[in-house]
């Protein structure tokens, strides 16, 4: 890397940090500017779903496609909700506890699935997700069954503004924790396995270990998101964690851009906020969501983050050319 391109890389990096800081500050002042509690409510939901989408991507980069991922959000939600309601434990304890519980279930599944690859893994996790939902449905009074689970211990006196900052903080912490995983050798090893497990094994990377680790990380954070969300909502139902819910998580990741860490964040914001904006159209709103999806898949195969990356690359090459012209003069 020559001095010039290093300079350009440093500049893009600091520009990236700048954007990040501005975004966090903006999100921080929104409750002061916005009157509508409903808008705050939507944003709190977005924050929880950002954690869930990031956790999904943490598994996807290791080359595994967990089609039952949303069911693990349900595991976290029900575990924390049930522990708080029936055992009268404080939510401050049950939320991290539920995240750890979800992680343990995830690891048990990952160990038994560690020989399954590609389509077989996807099928296995799909059926597992269905099974989890059925178990929760069959829970009688303990889980509320098909009619949903209500009366989950509230937090922060149900204040929307407090919840807003709590969820925002949880999202930023989770994102930072996951960022470290991806941009250390741990993430490199996972990406190596996803590109060729044979080569990865041949250079000494233990495939099973890193695949299980990816699922452990992903399950922990999706359990965390599910648990937080359950206490925020107060009432949950298994239909929020079925196969369709997993598909939505995949959409958030794909529309944002699967090759970029920030993809799931951008994707969750776009895909939750835009349908909300068109909510007044009632029946037609799903058509708009579908239309947006088509547009993204058709026009931006790299997702939204891919579009930004392409733009940055173009600016960089333009700047390099200009520097070369200046040098030639």
């Amino acid at each position, binding site marked *: 890397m020559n001095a010039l391109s290093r300079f350009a890389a440093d500049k893009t990096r600091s520009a990236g940090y700048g954007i990040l800081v501005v975004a966090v500050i903006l999100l921080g002042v929104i409750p002061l500017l916005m009157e509508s509690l409903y808008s705050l409510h939507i944003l709190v939901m977005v924050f929880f779903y950002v954690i869930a989408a990031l956790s999904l991507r943490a598994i996807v980069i290791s080359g595994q496609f967990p089609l039952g991922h949303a069911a693990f959000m349900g595991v976290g939600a029900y575990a924390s909700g049930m522990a708080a309601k029936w055992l009268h434990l404080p939510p401050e304890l049950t939320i991290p506890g539920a995240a750890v519980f979800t992680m343990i279930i995830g690891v048990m599944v990952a160990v038994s699935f560690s020989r399954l690859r590609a389509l077989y893994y996807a099928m296995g996790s799909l059926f597992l997700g269905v099974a989890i939902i059925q178990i929760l449905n069959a829970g009688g009074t303990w889980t509320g069954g098909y009619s949903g689970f209500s009366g989950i211990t509230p937090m922060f006196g149900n204040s929307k503004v407090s919840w807003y900052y709590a969820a925002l903080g949880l999202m930023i912490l989770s994102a930072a924790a996951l960022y470290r995983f991806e941009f250390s050798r741990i993430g490199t*090893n996972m990406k190596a396995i996803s*590109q*060729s497990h044979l080569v990865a094994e041949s*250079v000494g*990377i233990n495939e099973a270990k890193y695949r299980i*680790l990816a699922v452990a990380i992903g399950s922990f954070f999706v359990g965390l998101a599910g648990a937080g969300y359950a206490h925020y909502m107060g009432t949950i139902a298994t239909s929020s964690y079925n196969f369709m819910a997993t598909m939505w998580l995949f959409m958030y990741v794909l529309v944002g851009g699967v090759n970029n860490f920030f993809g799931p964040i951008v994707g969750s914001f776009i895909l939750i906020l835009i349908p909300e904006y068109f909510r007044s159209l009632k029946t037609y709103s799903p058509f708009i969501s579908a239309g947006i999806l088509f547009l993204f898949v058709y026009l931006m195969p790299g997702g939204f983050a891919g579009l930004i990356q392409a733009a940055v690359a173009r600016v960089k090459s333009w700047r390099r050319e200009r520097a070369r012209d200046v040098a030639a003069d």
Partner: protein
Amino acid sequence: MLLQIDNLTKRFGGLTAVDGFNAYVDEGEVVGLIGPNGAGKSTVFNLVTGVFPPTSGRVFFDGEDITRKKPHTVAELGIGRTFQMNLLFADFTVLENVSASSHVYPRSSLFDMYFNTRRYRRNEAEISDRALQILQLLGLESYKDELAKNLPHGYQKMLGVARALATKPKLLMLDEPLGGMNPSEIDFSLQAISNARDSGVTVLIVEHNMQILSLCDRVVVISFGQKICEGSPREVRENEEVISAYFGGKHGSA
């Protein structure tokens, strides 16, 4: 003796791919394992590196029984390998391919990796230096920022050698390093492999291209899963049985 293959047999259903095969590799040697297509060379290769377990027989490496060890354990113990097909970390650059392959040496724990400890930073700095040295050794340094999938075939194969060297192996096992190459790529690759040998690593080469003989100290010939001949490259080249295995029938009738 660095590698010892003892009475190795592998059956796939009714087919006996490797049948009571014996061989050894001494430290510092370059050994060629040659034979016609379908002779069982690659099967021996995969048995040694732990891709699948043998039906019977044993493999010893550096005094240790590695017979049923997993591929990543075999790599940790010091066998670096390449693949016959061009398997790559396709979306990594050439340099990233090599540094991602430096997982075994120098070693960082998960804790070091996650918390970016001083040891981890020192290891990573050493890894990027070594990766560049390896690319220079094999003549790939001008491609270091290229995506691996965009390299020409021959260079992808040499990238495989670079990746294997990144594991700091005691034994380098090359599976058909000249397969599918044009003459200029073959020249480039022979040079790269001899550079690797001169850096002091022991090499076992599986190949059916006889041009590889120029690099070998000793050659083992395998046909129908059995060893038919062993000796210096010249002895092997003149051996009647080898000639008939390669050309079919008796010498002169082919």
